[in-house]
Each structure stands twice: as structure tokens, then as C-alpha cells.
């Protein structure tokens, strides 16, 4: 399509949209559907509630010192778990305010004094992100057995990623490590029956969610039940099965990658901190980057999607942010995007000094500005970044189109706007050309259109027509990178949605690929905000119900409490009874396989007529 045709199509679509809306405005809105999976009718955009946003504002937080005392008292048995559920242990008020061109959080504990930390280096960026937040999802219902964690209880939303720690064992000794793997002196590892129970429970209440399951740990591939757990989650109907992995198992054992894929494993949420061995030095394996490349090769050969995850620590690896995104773009054939996670000082980092904490603190606003700087303004902090919750606009329309008979609600990520933001970019795998989607597609205007479509709640056909018009009128080919057309846009959307546009079929790999660049900022005791935890969309599913990610890993420390309650052995006993596992640490290199093994080792075919390969291979 040349620019003239594209412009004509855009204008015609615009005219069509306005014509439809003229008629639409004359007919009263239809009532929202109430699908069986939902606790009430689908929420119209004006009915959505929002947490308190903007600043200055007051919120509920925690005293970093009181919390640790409370946790230790519960673990040692001096205090009862009920105190944690029913009480307000360590809770204090905090104020979020703008000061000296930054957004900070300040709180005072009567016993331990005042604590202060940084939330954003750019108030305007944070203001834009909060303004783009469409509002909360449903309040949960019938979940009393699953969500029962006092002030840490999740109250809103359907969740997007259900995290399950399969084991706290790990084959690395990283610093930072938010769960203090290999250091706590005990083993907490789920049995297969426990994993199945947790997965069953998570779809037992409303809204019944179409979530992704993310197995985590420790290193989840060290659990003997990893493959069976993947298969069970897939059989139950979970949207996708992921694992937060360091990838060493896939690097060392290519067969495992194939088997994981066959068992149902879809996406590796892949620890990836830098594009050289030196940039990974803080993980204490001197050739870690080489191992990562091998893991990528093996996983991609098996058909596993990979999303690298980088924990960004100021003054440690913050300079890697730009090179990492460039690496993702250069290798977009193999990688689906990248998730940057500004450091959260928890686990073995909870004892950090104030000076180190202030020096190493990194926020999503740092990330937005660093990418802007590194790519000479190509990624705009104010135009390109959207809160993760913005996807809720898409989900509402999908839920509407699926109708009242749908068994699951669509995948929604309606978390607090301070929890995470992202940019979508398109990249050409042949010539390296790339651009943020928001450069040529007016996402905010399209989201507004989707809200109109969902609110008016017309029939399926009319809704589809409006969606098509909305897409066409907001796509501006003149601003798109050279060679990128609406057809290419649709193709990559289809691949990104796992073939949803084409009844499950994916087109052959195209030159263009869409990449997700996310910033997900987990809380720690200094930045803690209960308004965020009650809307958590990445709950930890445990033997003690589903707990907000931050309440589990930081907060009052549900992780330590749950793990102590359900530990299966102390580490020494475990090693004696079950055998030791290898831990790669001490700044030494790990032995890597020198080559991949051939699929078939012997040359001579037998019974060639029947056995000759006709499928073209993987």
C-alpha cells in the first residue's frame, strides 16, 4: 500500500467511524452481559473505580524495621500466624509527594523514625502513566478460602500471571535474589498433588480467570515435577505456561527443552542481565552470558518463546539497559521482548544500608529516560509508555465478544499504574529497522474507541466493524517505518496472539516482529503501598492461598512464613536423603556442552519406504 492509498483508507475509516457513532449515539446503550465466569455484569468504562492517584497523597505502608521483627516472631513461634492475618503489624501511613523534581515516599514510624525513598525521577512521566490507567477490574467474589491474608489480601482483578514456586532450590547463587535461594537452611518444595490442588483452586472463584501460569522458585526446572506441572496446567485450560528460569538446564540439556515444550511449556521468562560475560558478573558465573546464548539456542530450537528478564540495579548494570534492548532487536527472531525489573531490596538484600539503597535505587522513570537517551529520542517517555493496566481496554471488548457462555474471562492485567509500564515496538529482523508502535498507531485514541464499543455493547458484527474502523483510522502509515504496512501489522498481531486471528494458525515467520519492552517494579519495604498489593495481578499461589507478589516477597514476608510452615526438610537432611544438586557460583566458569548432538547419529536408513522422513523436521 502506498502512502496515498493508506491515507485514503484512514480517512474513509474515520468517516465510517463517525457515521456509525452518529447512529450509535441515537440508540440507547445495551446492558452489559453477565458471563458465568464473572461476579457481575461486564464493567463499563465509567463504572471502573480507581485507587487514589496523583500527589501529594497518603497511603498505607510498612515500617521496614517493625515488619522484620514481626516476621521473626511468627517464624520462631513467639507470635501466632493469626496475628499476621488479623492485625496491622508494622503498618504505618506514608505520604507520596513531589519534591525537588522527584516523586518520593516518606513515612515515619514512632519507634524507628523516618524513612524516605525515591519513586520517580520525572513527575511528568509518572503523571502521564497514571492518567492512562483505565481503572480497576472486578472485585473478587467467593474467594474467601484463597484470599485470606488480612491487609495483604488481594481484592480486585482476575490476575494475569499466577506464580507458583515449585521449589526454593536453585543451581545459582545470585546477588540480588529476592527469595534468598540456597541460603535459608531448609527446602520448601511442592509435591505434584499440591501443585494440582493449587491450580484447581485458582479457577474455583469469580472472576474465573484465563491466566498464565508462571512456575518460579528457586529454579523451577529443578523441581522433579516441572514437566508434569506444565502438562497439568495446560490440560486445565490455563492460557500459557511460563517459567521464571535462569536457563541453565536448557543450556546443559537440549533434550529437556524439547520435552518441556511437548509437556506444555510455552514461555521462558528468562533471567538475562547483560550482553557480555562481564555484565553478568554479579551472578557469580564467569561465562554466564555464553550459557545464556546456548539456552536461547536450545529453547528456540524447541519452539519455546523467550522473554528475557533483567533486574536493573543502579550503578551495577543500569548501563546495560540500552545495549540489552538493542540485543533484543538484533535477535528478534529468537526473543519476544524484554522485561526490565528495577531492583527490589528484599530477600538477602533486605539488610542493605541506606547509602547503598539510595545509590542502587532504580525506577521505571529511570528506565524510560535511559532508553530515550540511548536511542537518541526514538523511545519517547511521554508518548510511548503505557501502564500495564491499559490492556484492560482490549480485554473488556474481548469479553464482550466472547459472550455470556464463555467459561473464562479474558487475560487482563489491571494492576496499579505504579506497578509497571511498557512499550510495544515493531522490528524488522532482516534490516534491523524498528519503531515504537505508538509512533504510527494512536494507541490512546484506539483505547478510547474500544471503550465506546464496549460501553455501547452492540452485537458481535457491529462491534467487529467498529473495531476494524478503529484500527484503520488510527494507523498512520506515513509515520510507520519504511516497509511496514497495515497488513504487516495484522500479521504480527496474529503471531503475537498465538494465531487467534487465523483460527490457531500462525503465518510463516515474517520480516516484522512485535516486541514487548516492559518495566515491572516490585515493591520492597521502603516503597511499599497497600493500594498496589490489593490490586495485584501476579499473585503467588501457595499452600496458604494466593498472596500478592509483593506481600509474598516483601511486605510482612509471607514467603518466609509459608515456607517455614510447609518446609519439607532442612537442607542437610535433604542432601543426605535426596542427593546434592550442582550450584554454579564462586565466579568460576561452568562447563558447557561443546556442541548440540545430532538428531540422528547413524547414517544408514533402514526400511526406507516407511521410515523416510517426510515431515520436513522441526
Amino acid at each position, binding site marked *: 500500500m502506498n502512502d496515498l492509498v493508506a491515507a485514503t483508507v484512514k480517512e474513509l475509516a474515520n468517516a465510517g467511524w463517525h457515521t456509525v457513532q452518529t447512529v450509535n449515539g441515537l440508540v440507547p446503550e445495551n446492558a452489559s452481559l453477565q458471563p458465568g465466569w464473572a461476579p457481575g455484569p461486564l464493567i463499563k468504562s465509567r463504572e471502573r473505580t480507581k485507587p487514589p492517584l496523583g500527589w501529594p497523597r497518603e497511603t498505607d505502608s510498612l515500617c521496614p524495621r517493625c515488619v522484620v521483627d514481626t516476621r521473626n516472631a511468627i517464624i520462631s513461634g513467639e507470635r501466632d500466624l493469626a496475628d499476621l492475618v488479623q492485625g496491622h503489624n508494622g503498618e504505618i501511613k506514608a505520604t507520596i509527594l513531589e519534591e525537588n523534581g522527584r516523586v518520593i515516599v516518606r513515612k515515619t514510624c514512632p519507634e524507628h523514625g523516618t524513612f524516605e525513598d525515591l519513586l520517580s525521577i520525572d513527575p511528568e512521566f509518572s503523571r502521564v502513566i497514571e492518567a492512562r490507567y483505565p481503572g480497576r477490574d472486578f472485585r473478587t467474589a467467593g474467594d474467601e478460602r484463597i484470599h485470606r491474608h488480612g491487609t495483604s489480601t488481594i481484592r480486585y482483578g482476575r490476575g494475569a500471571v499466577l506464580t507458583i514456586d515449585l521449589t526454593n532450590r536453585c543451581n545459582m547463587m545470585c546477588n540480588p535474589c529476592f527469595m534468598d535461594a540456597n541460603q535459608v537452611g531448609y527446602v520448601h518444595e511442592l509435591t505434584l498433588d499440591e501443585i494440582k490442588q493449587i491450580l484447581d483452586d485458582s479457577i474455583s472463584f469469580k472472576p474465573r480467570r484465563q491466566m498464565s501460569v508462571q512456575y518460579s522458585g528457586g529454579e523451577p526446572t*529443578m523441581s*522433579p515435577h516441572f*514437566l*508434569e506441572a506444565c502438562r497439568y496446567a495446560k490440560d486445565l485450560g490455563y492460557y*500459557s505456561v511460563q517459567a521464571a528460569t535462569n536457563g*541453565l538446564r536448557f543450556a*546443559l*540439556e537440549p*533434550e*529437556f527443552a*524439547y*520435552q518441556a515444550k*511437548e509437556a506444555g511449556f510455552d514461555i521462558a521468562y528468562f533471567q538475562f542481565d547483560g550482553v557480555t560475560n562481564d555484565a553478568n558478573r554479579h551472578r557469580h558465573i564467569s561465562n554466564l552470558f555464553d550459557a545464556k546464548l546456548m539456552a536461547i539456542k536450545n529453547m528456540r530450537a524447541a*519452539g519455546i518463546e523467550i522473554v528475557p528478564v533483567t533486574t536493573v540495579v543502579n550503578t551495577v548494570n543500569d548501563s546495560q539497559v540500552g545495549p540489552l534492548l538493542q540485543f533484543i532487536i538484533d535477535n528478534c527472531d529468537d526473543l519476544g521482548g524484554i522485561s526490565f525489573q528495577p531492583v527490589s531490596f528484599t530477600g538477602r538484600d533486605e539488610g542493605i544500608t541506606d547509602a547503598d539503597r539510595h545509590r542502587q535505587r532504580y525506577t521505571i522513570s529511570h528506565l524510560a529516560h535511559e532508553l530515550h537517551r540511548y536511542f537518541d529520542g526514538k523511545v519517547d517517555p511521554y508518548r510511548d509508555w503505557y501502564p500495564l493496566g491499559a*490492556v484492560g481496554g*482490549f480485554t473488556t*471488548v*474481548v469479553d464482550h*465478544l466472547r459472550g455470556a457462555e464463555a467459561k473464562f474471562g*479474558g*487475560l487482563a492485567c489491571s494492576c496499579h499504574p505504579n506497578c509497571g509500564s511498557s512499550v510495544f515496538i515493531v522490528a524488522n529482523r532482516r534490516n534491523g529497522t524498528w519503531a515504537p508502535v505508538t509512533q504510527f498507531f494512536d494507541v490512546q485514541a484506539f483505547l478510547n474507541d474500544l471503550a465506546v464499543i464496549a460501553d455501547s455493547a452492540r452485537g458481535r458484527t457491529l462491534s*467487529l466493524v467498529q*473495531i*476494524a474502523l478503529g*484500527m484503520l483510522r488510527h494507523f498512520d502509515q506515513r509515520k510507520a517505518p519504511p516497509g511496514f504496512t497495515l*497488513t504487516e501489522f*495484522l500479521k504480527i*498481531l*496474529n503471531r503475537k*496472539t498465538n494465531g*487467534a*486471528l*487465523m*483460527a490457531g*494458525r*500462525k*503465518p*510463516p515467520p515474517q520480516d516484522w516482529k512485535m516486541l514487548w519492552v516492559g518495566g515491572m517494579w516490585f515493591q520492597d519495604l521502603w516503597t511499599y503501598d497497600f493500594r498496589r498489593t490489593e490490586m495485584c495481578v501476579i499473585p503467588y499461589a501457595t499452600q496458604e492461598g494466593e498472596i500478592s507478589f509483593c506481600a509474598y516477597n516483601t511486605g510482612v514476608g509471607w514467603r518466609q512464613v509459608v515456607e517455614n510452615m510447609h518446609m519439607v526438610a532442612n537442607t542437610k537432611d535433604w542432601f543426605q536423603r*535426596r*542427593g546434592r*544438586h*550442582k550450584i554454579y557460583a564462586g565466579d568460576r566458569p561452568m562447563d558447557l*556442552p561443546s556442541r548440540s*548432538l545430532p*538428531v*540422528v*547419529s*547413524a547414517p*544408514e536408513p*533402514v*526400511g*526406507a*519406504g*516407511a*521410515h*523416510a*522422513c*517426510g*515431515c520436513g523436521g*522441526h
Partner: protein
Amino acid sequence: MVHLEWLLALGYIDSLFAERTAVTSRPLGTLPETLAQLYLQAMRHHAREAVLLWRDGDQWAPVPDWRFDRQVIRIALYLKERAGVKPEDRVAIVSELRQEWLAAEWAAIGLGAVSVAVDPDLAPARLTGALVEAGPRVVFASETALSKLDNGTMSLPGLTEMIAFTTQRPTDSVRTIAEIVELGGTLDTAERAQAFRAYARSIPADQPALSQHDASIEGRVAWQEVSHGQGVERVGQWWKLRPAQEGDRTYVLAGSPSLALRLALHACVADGYTMTVLGGTGRAQAELREIGPQRIVAPPAMLEDAVHDAEQQPPPMKPEGWRERANRALGRGGDTSSKHPISTALGGRVRAIDPLGPLDPLLAERLRRVASVGREII
């Protein structure tokens, strides 16, 4: 990662150029030098939804390639690390054919040990005599065998572990196969799994792999034994005789497997295509109709029953028309009621039959009307 079904209409034209991305199994078709290499080759890059299918109560339980491979590795790691099994040690399997039987056998030969099969139906004294003669480091035993071996408490020279193919421990000193797989699960790290594979790859072709107690010779203990190389040669012969096609199902009904049957099973598991169905005694005919296998390996008595029942059935009401004949000529399934009654009794798709014993010539003649009948597997 949002479902965007609402874009179906716009995506339709693109779908004309789309390709299916389902994971498929790859045929092997090449013969390595050893049985251990054959196993490694079969388990690499294969994605059969069920390499084995067996009855678990009222339901069929599929064992996909990945699960079978992990079972084999975990049993092997347990045998090596906990039971001290070393290359050329003997691992005895005293059991009727079951899915764990195959996993235990692959595990043993992958370690370079010799997998020794002993018929569990032998009288207790002969069974004990066979085991004493075999001198196994580890014994896998079924419920039938355990009852003849003092529930596993009997002592044999050199024996370190008795493992039960049962759901409950018969005694405290005997572990169940499920416990072994579970304990092996935590030993199953990338490093150990790869070390297992690396060793299995290096086993020489002349090393003994399979041994079979010959129960037909009364009064003394006699053994048949094949090396890795000989075993692979026999597998190659089976592949030539019974070439597999994608989606093939082989139905096997057997008690304690003979050496020839064991090698036939290796051939099926390792060809990359075949789903091997382990049938249950007394349910064979119903299972055959349910499974519709292309190949049947069964004792003559079962085949005779099937033929007898088929011949008792009234003839089809309407004569076979051109459509049915065309379908039959093209090898398509379709309505089995138009097939030969014997074929229908054997599931409707059977291409080849291998009896587990001498076949009555008249019975063989009748079976040849619907399928190729091989020499007996004994």
C-alpha cells in the same frame, strides 16, 4: 498476549498463507550401533502423545515420549546412585509385561547393565534358582513374583535392592517403583541426565544387553543372551518386516515377555511413530475395537477367540458397495461394518499380526484374509 478474536475478519485473508505449527514426531529410520543409542535416538526430538498406552483401572493412561524418557532416566539414576548398579551388573525383571517393565529395561541397559527377564509364573523354587543363577544387583518384581519371593525379603548374593511393581510397599525394606521414580526425580539434574546419556552413548556394541531365562527347559537353568549390537540387528529386521507409518498403533497382549517380544517392543518404542498399547487379559476384544490397531502381537488363543467370535456374527445385511470397496482399497477406515468380520473383530484397521506362539494352520489361513501374518514371536 491478549486474545484478539475480534480481528478474525481482517485476518482471514492472511490465513490463506498460514502454516500449521503443531509439533510432530519425526521418524527415525536409521539404525545405530547399540540398543542404548537406539533408545537415546528415539527419545530425542520426539513428540508422540503416547509412546505407550496402558490400562489404569477403567481408563487408558498415555505415556508421552517426554514422560517415558524422564521415567527411564530417573530409574537409571536411582539404580546408579542409590543401588550402586554398575556396567555389566545384572538387573532382573520378574514381572508380567507392563509399562514400568519397559522403563526399567531401558534404564538398565542405558547404564550398561544387563536386563535379565525371568518369568514370574515359574514355581517358587525355579524362580529362586533362576535368580540365584542370574546374580542380580537389583530385582524388579511384580505382585505375583513377590508372593513367591517372600515379599522381597529373601536374600540373594549380591542383591542390594528389591523394587516392587506395586502401589503399596509389600514390606518396609522393599520400595515401590513410584518411590524410585520420585526419588530419582530429585537426582534428575541436567548434569546427571547428560552423564547418563553420555555413558549410554559410549557402550560398546559387543556388551551384553538383554538376557532371558529360558523357562522351556525343565530341570536346569538356561539363558538366552544378546549383546547391544545383536539386539539392534534384530530391531532392524523387525523394522524391515514391519515398517511403521505415522500414527500406527501396535496392540500387545502378553504375559511375561520372551526375548523376541522384548526386541519387538524395542523396535516399536524406538521407531518414532508407533504407539504401543499394552492390552489387558480378558478385555482384549473390546480393547481391539476401541483402539483399532494396525499391528497385533498376541497369543494364539486370543486370536482364535477373536476369529471364532467373528465367525459367529451374522453376515452384513447389505452387500459391500463400490464406496466400501474403494475405501478398503485405499486403506481408509470409514464404516467398519462393511469390513471382513475378522478384521472388524480385530479393530478394523489391522495390517499385520504376529502371534506369540505356534499358530494353527487353519487359523493362520483365516487371519491372512485380513492381514499379513508373521512368524511366531517366541
